[in-house]
């Protein structure tokens, strides 16, 4: 293949797709290359929860900005994207967690996100399937859910309509100095190569710290109206924080089909994509503790996926120091779907030298270079 293009995007997952869309929108010629197909990697494995996360200011800014972008496009989504604003309820099991609910409510309120504190009774009414007693929760109505593989395909198709090109089943083995080299020996020249290869990003940009974090999900048969909102335990962030131990957290999602999606688990240093019976059981039992009815629901499938995790829990978005032709757009851990659109926007901002709507500093890949003292 001898192609000349302005930007090559490595990876047609949700992040690569979003980058392609944002760049193509600005009339930049884009070529997307994926070793498989659109949205077949981590994008296919995740929950598709679009959520405003308050783990840090930088995380909040990115998730919030991106969430708004998802909302802006809502009139354009085909049914297959299954976008719905079903909202999230952060569930508090006890008074200590209710204090956290209060804090979260204030945090969101100060930043323009509507949320409602639910006491025990209000929680029961909102979600009759939750066990009793629980202390209450925080309802965030603006959070949404999408079906990621089709969302990625939607973004790719929009990019193609705007002049982008895509090559699937093609593996890129190295990038740099204005070239992306493929396994078959051919190469593509470009001004910039965007490394949106998720957990495989370090293979193309040696030196970045992105590690796979294995997760499990279970999907059930159809049980419409079993739950109405995405339900997440407040301990979720504790699980997401742990950098070494295996952990689970209650995270339940109602899909538009009426199926229930059950998560979540996190494991480090596991290369094997096989289902791990032990952590699966732990994850399920945690879910049973919140929604007892789950025990009797029919589970059709179980699968695993690998999130791309960075040590500071923020993705790498922007130019890679040491090679002006390489940009990074990877390391989104469990927020890839949510923050993909903002990532695309930031990448376009970097390419065009445009000021970003949110400070882009916290996500700069250069922070990793400094931390690890690379040349």
């Amino acid at each position, binding site marked *: 293949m001898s192609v000349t293009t302005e930007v090559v995007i490595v990876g047609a997952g949700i992040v690569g797709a979003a980058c392609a869309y944002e760049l193509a929108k600005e009339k930049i010629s884009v070529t997307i290359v994926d070793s498989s197909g659109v949205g077949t990697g981590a994008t296919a494995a995740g929950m598709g929860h679009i959520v405003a996360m308050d783990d840090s200011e930088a995380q909040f800014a990115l998730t919030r900005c991106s969430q708004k972008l998802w909302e802006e496009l809502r009139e354009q989504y085909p049914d297959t994207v299954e976008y719905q604003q079903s909202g999230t309820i952060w569930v508090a099991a006890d008074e200590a967690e209710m204090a956290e609910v209060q804090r979260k409510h204030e945090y969101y309120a100060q930043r323009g996100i509507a949320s409602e504190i639910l006491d025990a009774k209000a929680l029961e009414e909102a979600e009759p399937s939750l066990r009793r007693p629980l202390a209450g929760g925080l309802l965030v109505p603006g959070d949404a859910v999408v079906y990621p593989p089709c969302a990625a395909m939607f973004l790719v198709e929009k990019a193609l309509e705007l002049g982008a090109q895509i090559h699937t089943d093609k593996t890129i083995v190295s990038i740099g100095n204005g070239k992306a080299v493929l396994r078959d020996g051919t190469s593509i020249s470009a001004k910039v190569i965007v490394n949106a290869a998720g957990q495989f990003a370090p293979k193309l940009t040696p030196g970045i710290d992105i590690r796979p974090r294995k997760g499990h999900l279970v999907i059930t*048969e*159809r*049980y419409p109206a079993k739950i109405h909102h995405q339900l997440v335990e407040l301990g979720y962030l504790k699980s997401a924080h742990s950098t070494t131990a295996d952990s689970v957290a209650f995270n339940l999602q109602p899909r538009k*089909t009426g199926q229930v999606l059950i998560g979540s688990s996190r494991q480090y240093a596991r290369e094997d994509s096989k289902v791990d019976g032990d952590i699966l059981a732990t994850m399920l039992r945690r879910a049973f503790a919140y929604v007892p009815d789950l025990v009797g629901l*029919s589970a059709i499938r179980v699968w695993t996926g690998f999130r791309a995790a960075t040590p500071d829990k923020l993705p790498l978005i922007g130019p890679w120091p040491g090679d002006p032709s390489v940009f990074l757009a990877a390391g989104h851990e469990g927020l890839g779907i949510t923050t993909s659109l903002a990532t695309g926007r930031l990448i376009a901002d970097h390419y065009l030298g445009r000021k970003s709507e949110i400070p882009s500093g916290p996500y700069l890949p250069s922070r990793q270079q400094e931390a690890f003292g690379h040349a």
Partner: protein
Amino acid sequence: MHEEIRIRINGKSLAVPRGTSVAAAMTRAGEPCRISVSGQARAPLCGMGICFDCRAVVNGQPHVRGCQVQCEAGMEILSDE
């Protein structure tokens, strides 16, 4: 010497020989086992528990493969939605 038992399918009472499967009973009665996701009436296809098209609600339990369950006296059977 087939003993008959009474069951109800979609509210209608009928008698079937003991040993009849739920799927056979529903097909016999001309009632769909389930309504598909796009609204089609469905009846059993494979008869051996593989295709899942014979799913019905049996005594309140949804998604039961009717071909793998024998009718019992007093069973309440509804088309699965």
